[in-house]
């Protein structure tokens, strides 16, 4: 029961923060930035292998809902329907490439940071 409550709490907070930060999912720049940052933090936190309750609350709940796939798709489709094809393509490409790259960066940042910390 507790994990479900933690996921619910994290999911509610993540969805609310995303909704407010992106002005009700209408601002592509803010949405892309939020998504990419959430990906970086998720990569970092996953590499750190935190305790189960933290993983459930922050990763599965908060960070999962902070960067939803529907916002990326919705903003792309909205741009296309307004005839801004180039902006839509740039937004989709930047979010996907940036999200994947930042996840790897977050993951590697923790592992290499830990290695450096142990060395010195």
């Amino acid at each position, binding site marked *: 029961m507790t994990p479900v409550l933690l996921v619910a709490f994290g999911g509610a907070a993540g*969805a609310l923060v995303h909704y407010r930060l992106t002005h009700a999912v209408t601002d592509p720049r803010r949405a892309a930035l939020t998504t990419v940052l959430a990906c970086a933090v998720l990569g970092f936190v996953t590499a750190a292998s935190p305790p189960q309750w933290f993983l459930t609350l922050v990763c599965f709940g908060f960070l999962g*809902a902070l960067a939803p796939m529907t*916002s*990326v798709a919705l903003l792309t489709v909205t741009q296309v329907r307004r005839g801004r094809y180039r902006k839509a393509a740039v937004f989709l490409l930047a979010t996907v490439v940036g999200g994947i790259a930042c996840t790897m960066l977050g993951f590697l940042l923790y592992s290499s940071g830990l290695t450096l910390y142990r060395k010195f």
Partner: protein
Amino acid sequence: MTSPRLAESITVGVGGAVGAVVRFEIWQWRDSPKWLLVNTFGINAFGCLVLGAALGYLSGTRTPVLRAAAIGLACGFTSFSFYALQGVTYDGAWNSVVYILVTPVVAVTALAAGALITRPHTRPVEALR
């Protein structure tokens, strides 16, 4: 904070909580990386289709709270960050590449298809909002 804004925030929060719990429960069914990958793909595609259908149905109407509820539910249910994480950490290289390339295309197509299916033809159509 004004009242409509508060109502929107509450519906987004409740929707996000329900969506995240449903996603979490679906992930709990089986514990294998391949299952998670396939599941996340299905969740993202289905979530986009349903949100597109909901927003298409609501287009042209003044229902900000219903729109907020649909967006909150979809925000909690689908996840871009886990798509990126699973695509990066999955062992099979080619499966990862296909997954990373196909998911965004399918998500955008599903959302557009959902909106086109339910869009009311008698009302003036606005751009998905």
